[in-house]
């Protein structure tokens, strides 16, 4: 078998690569390890819980409405630390650059990284640069890794029947912004990526109430994240279509392209499961934050398995983990 693009699409096919790593002898350093496939690892050091995570970024185009590869590479790692309940402290940065890459462009990318780091008061403490010969790589790839400290660890498998499901804002913005600018689709309203560092907002929410489970719906979108949470928590989740916040511009684009907004990436959103009693309080805190204005309670957790969408028309459908590439199914 050869690696296909589907193997990196965050859907079911990617599982084949992930399975390879189950061969690694040691995957756990005493806390939460690779086997959990959570947003990051947790390593107990003394009486502190250190959160450690890494992410590589290859987004095309490098600059898109609302962000660029630099901002994503910082936010992706900060958010993964935040999703574990950690406060991000420091990041590393590994650059792999194609020979001939424009220096000014690189400088813009670094500026953007700096702004994102400053927003959350995170340092970039170490780095590495490699240049590959022309043609060996398409422009640039950025890897970041990061550490943080967690007082309360939040997993992605802690949902309990009765919990409310909250999303911190509109879904699908990043995916549609990037595909529109990459494929040069000229939608009536420009769609802007939501890429943002979320640790501040997440910690405000954690201070306002209990969070049972949390995940950022990046690759594979909300559909992938919510299914992973349901599966790992061994619960059923019911989502109310009418409550799911989706921008009208994203909806219009999805109806022109046949792409489900729930199946494309978000880079500045969090999905959380919270006790029903805390839901309104947490929602209020989220809504008060600049990155959570459109937050909404969109569903509930029940006994059972699977994720069910209660449609606006009164029907039901499953929200399924995307394969990575849509396949028509109508007969």
């Amino acid at each position, binding site marked *: 078998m050869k690696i296909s693009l589907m193997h990196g699409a965050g859907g079911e096919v990617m599982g084949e690569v992930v399975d390879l790593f189950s061969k690694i002898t040691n995957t756990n350093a005493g806390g939460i390890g690779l086997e959990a496939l959570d947003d990051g690892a947790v390593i107990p050091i003394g009486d502190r819980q250190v959160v450690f995570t890494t992410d590589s970024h290859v987004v095309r185009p490098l600059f898109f409405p609302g962000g660029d590869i630099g901002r994503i590479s910082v936010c992706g790692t900060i958010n993964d630390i935040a999703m574990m309940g950690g406060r991000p402290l420091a990041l590393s940065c590994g650059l792999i650059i194609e020979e001939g890459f424009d220096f000014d462009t690189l400088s813009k990318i670094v500026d953007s990284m700096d702004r994102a780091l400053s927003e959350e008061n995170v340092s970039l403490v170490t780095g590495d640069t490699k240049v590959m010969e022309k043609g060996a790589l398409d422009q640039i790839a950025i890897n970041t890794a990061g550490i943080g400290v967690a007082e309360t660890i939040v997993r992605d498998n802690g949902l309990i029947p009765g919990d409310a499901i909250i999303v911190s804002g509109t879904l699908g913005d990043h995916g549609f912004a990037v595909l529109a600018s990459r494929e040069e689709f000229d939608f009536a309203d420009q769609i802007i990526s939501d890429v943002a560092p979320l640790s501040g907002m997440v910690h405000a929410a954690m201070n306002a109430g209990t969070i049972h489970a949390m995940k950022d719906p990046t690759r594979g979108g909300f559909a992938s994240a919510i299914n992973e949470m349901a599966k790992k928590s061994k619960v059923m989740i019911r989502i109310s279509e009418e409550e799911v916040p989706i921008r009208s511009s994203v909806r219009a684009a999805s109806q022109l*392209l046949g792409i489900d907004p729930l199946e494309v990436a978000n880079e500045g959103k969090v999905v959380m499961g919270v006790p029903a009693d805390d839901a309104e309080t947490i929602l209020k805190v989220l809504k008060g934050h600049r990155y959570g204005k459109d937050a909404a309670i969109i569903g509930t957790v029940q006994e059972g398995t699977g994720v069910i969408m209660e449609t606006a028309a009164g029907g039901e459908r499953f929200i399924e983990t995307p394969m990575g590439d849509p396949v*028509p199914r109508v007969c």
Partner: protein
Amino acid sequence: MPKQGHIIIRGIVQGVGFRPFVYARAIAHGIRGSVCNTGSEVQIDAWGDNFDDFLSDLRKGPPLSTIDSVEVHPLSGDSPKSFHILKSHDGVRTGLIPPDIATCPDCIKDIFTPNGRYEGYFATSCVNCGPRYSIIKTLPYDRERTAMDEFPPCGDCSEEYSDPFSRRHHAQTIACQICGPELVLHSGTGAVIKEQSPIKRTAQLLDQGSIIAIRGIGGFHIACTGDMARTLKERLGRTEQPFAIMARKEWILDNTSISPDEEKILQSEISPIVVLDKKDPNALDNVSNLHTIGCMVPYTGLHHLLFSYLSAPYLIMTSANAPGYPMITTLAEALSKLSRITDYYLTHTRDIMNRCDDSVIRKGHIIRLSRGYAPKRTKIDLGNTAILGTGPELNATVTLYTQGFCITSPHIGNVRNPGTYAYLKETTSCLCNLMQPDIKIIAHDLHPQFLSTRYAKELSDETGALLVPVQHHEAHIAASCQKECIGIAIDGVGYGTDGTIWGGEIFQGSAPHYSRVGHLMPVLMPGGDLATIWPERMLYGILPDEQTHQLLLSRGWKEQDLSILEKQVSKRFNTAVTSSTGRILDAAAALLGICRKKTYDGEPAMKLESAAYGASPETWEIPLTRIGTAEVLDTPSLLKQARDRFMSDPKDSQNIQQIAASIQYNLARGIGVIACNAAASAGLQTIALSGGVAYNEMIRNTIRETVHKNGYQLCTNHDMPLGDGCISFGQCVYAGKKEIL
């Protein structure tokens, strides 16, 4: 000459009055002994001089029975003094029970006999009629294992039950006014409306324009008069989809061009919905805006009584469910789901154990395999291993193979929502409960995302059964012809072995070895499934040029949206590739302005067929080409022909009618020609035809003519749906042949 013997009769011998039949023959021939029912066998100990005559009578069986085999074994010991019916006990299970049977003429007579025991009783039945599958919990079939166990028979019923000379001797469904299920009329809020005759009141309310949910054999119908059809369509949000109607036979004869064969099936013990050509294609457009109308006659006591009080000539009788969802069976669900649709509820107190929708048949081809047909039992040797076929996604059935028979379930629906997925599991359990197979092989569709595929995988994880993925169109052909043949599979969409979307395929071979020797030209489906909802996308995907651009602009497309569609096609962004026949018909319907948006399954193609009705097609040149070793019909160039003709006079309705006919005709000829060429080069005589597009009369007839004209035979499976209702059966055939070989 033996004067005694132990007789074993196998087949469908339960729920058909077999024991009373044997009893009556025994008395007639002076036979002593006993009869008992053990699952799928009737065992008879018989002594008497007329043993041979008795035996030859037995071989005929009662009307609803199916006899697989009759064995006679030696019998020793002394004969008893008389003949007895013994209690049923469990035994082998290959026979099943019959499906639900329309109320027989004798019972109808009873219902309308003044002062008779059954006068006006809605659930009158006998050994020859009434519900079977819909009420059974488990085999063997006896009252205590059916929904009738809650209704202990009264003295009169018990007496009739034990009377060997009665039509209700050992009739498990025997019931009357005194002891049986009752009818209850409920208001819109669920309150009971006390009525001397709930049926009479229901008829009055219907005549006055009420929309009423009526609980039948296998689920609820929504009923109203023709005057209320549009209101009901609006309330259901299904303004385009035709309704089926129930009418007296005379009315149907007056309003449709019904053939003698169709008349026979219409009033048979199955009494399905028969899709008939209207006498005036434009009449009754409040019910159906196609040239056809789905008709059935009253088939239960309740219906006969309702029509005896009703003034309206016919009733809309549509299944109470959202499209693709299972039919509603309980009052509680009806009250919660139909509150905005129906004004009243007429229900009865007998539980529906197994849901069963009305069957639908058109020109001798089963469209929906359900009440009266299913569970459908097919004798076929697929070896000794039990197989489950979990079916496709749309119009699904499941099939269980065990001990020489395939048992195909009633229509399940579109397995793409939690409700229907649960129904798929329920139906599978029901068949397994009845047949008790040890399933070692699970066959499923090749499509990785179908819920039926997911179910197959779940079951296999639980039981360790072997999974056999079956390509959708190969399953179509396996279901229609089991010998080596050329197979034409024409339908909407199925997942191909090359990862593209198939649906216009010509195979050579037999299960499990097929090669794809021909197909329609792969074309683009911009937006994937979106292109099935908006057929104009399909048109553009096939003919992405300036002329289509201008046409779509003139149809109200925004320049900006169109430029995105163009970019999507040129970049092949989220654009699937398909050889589907259905999508070509969709595109033709879009081209001719016949259907711009699909609101129900198959709508564009059905409207195209209606538009073409009565027109004589032109004969166009068939554009054939090759891709690899396969012969390919160049559908874009066919569609271009159609577009050129259309553009020459886009306003002329006769022109449109003729193009609609021509595109169907020449598409079908092309498919037929490829099949005949394949048959010639393979030296095969038989060409099989399957797939939902084959319901289209002109396409099916044109393919048949082409095949016959070239000296080949056309083979279709009349016992199975041409559409996806046959897939689960085809999956079993495929997996079974694979196992045997």
